[in-house]
């Protein structure tokens, strides 16, 4: 062989329309995992600046809770965590050899369940906005 052509990785994510359930589950799981790690560090960083006293702590939290974007981000965080937990359970079952044949359906079920939980949580998360905490 004189020469050959390497098409590289372009096809990997350029072909997202052709991905199947297992691949999407993998991508979402990685993605939500990284978001949760990122959130954890932000959470520690923010709280550690507020532990100087009870007053500062309450002020910081109340300040944050009065911002609309933060409330929205909280809903996003819930969605991320719920999906990660459900898909993690799905993966655990797969590891144990349970439900291998319906792995795509269990992924869709995790998505639907995540959606339902998130929608149900919206009133709680947005409660009291504008009128103070």
């Amino acid at each position: 062989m004189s020469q050959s052509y390497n098409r590289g990785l372009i096809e990997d994510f350029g072909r997202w329309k052709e991905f199947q359930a297992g691949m999407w589950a993998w991508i979402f799981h990685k993605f939500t995992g990284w978001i949760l790690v990122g959130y954890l560090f932000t959470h520690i960083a923010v709280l550690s600046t507020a532990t100087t006293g009870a007053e500062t702590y309450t002020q910081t939290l109340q300040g944050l809770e009065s911002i609309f974007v933060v409330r929205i981000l909280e809903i996003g965080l819930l969605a991320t965590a719920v999906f990660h937990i459900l898909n993690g359970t799905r993966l655990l079952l797969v590891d144990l050899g349970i439900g291998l044949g319906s792995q795509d359906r269990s992924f869709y079920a995790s998505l639907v369940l995540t959606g339902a939980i998130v929608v149900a949580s919206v009133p709680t998360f947005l409660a009291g906005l504008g009128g103070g905490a």
Partner: protein
Amino acid sequence: MSTQVPEQEGEAESSADAETDASVESPQEQRMAKKATDRAYRDAQKKAQEEIAAAEEAVRMKVFRYDPEVEGKQEPRFDEFHVPFEKGMTVLDALMYARDHYDPSLTFRHSCRQAVCGSDAMFVNGQQRLCCKTQMSDLEWPVRVEPLPHQDVVKDLVVDMQHFYDQMHSVEPYFQGENAPDGEEQKQTRENREKIKMSTRCIWCGACMSSCNIAAGDNEYLGPAAINKAYRFYMDEREDEAELEEHRLRILEQEHGVWRCQTQFSCTEVCPKDIPLTEHIQELKREAVKSNLKFW
């Protein structure tokens, strides 16, 4: 359909033979031979046009082209072919039609044409498939045919399979063990045969490996086919020495072995032989854990 082809090939060959036959052919004869070949192809193309006109439908195919040896073809591109559709036509049939009627340089592998040899695995409409097993009528048109992803392209639709074969060989895909008494047949129970039945069906097409993006990112990962091959021997009761099982597990348990699998199921989705690859990999993972937990 392709009556023209043997003729053309014959002519092309004879002119090529003459050229190598120490320049007995004058430039004029060479020109004439070339003209004859060209004419034969023009005829074939005309025939194709007529057939397309006569056929009720024509399939449009976009085929990946690349040829490192011809300047101007080194930059990959897609060629379009229109092929008269017939009931029962497979992607391989269409490719052969295109090669025979439009472009004799269109290169792809095939052999058995009945999903047994595994040589014509390609990337058809975004999925790894055996061309001889894939019906044109099951696909969305235009049909896009590309070589298997994640493998170097040698020419057009032909990929370099060496790495895949190396991985397959690395799991020692053959019977071992000394337990067989000389001259006596080794029997296998029905249950054990059932257990490994699916894993024995692999035809080394490489579709699974090509669909796995963990394998794409980690060149040393054994890959689904090789792990399945190891499963076939590990689970076979006729290889029953503990030492041997240990040896096989060691190969599978290595850093780039079973633990690389992230259960994307891509391999299982594309395997033309319906081998439950992910299931086999997961089972071997469990075996590996069991063998390491000594109190088990």
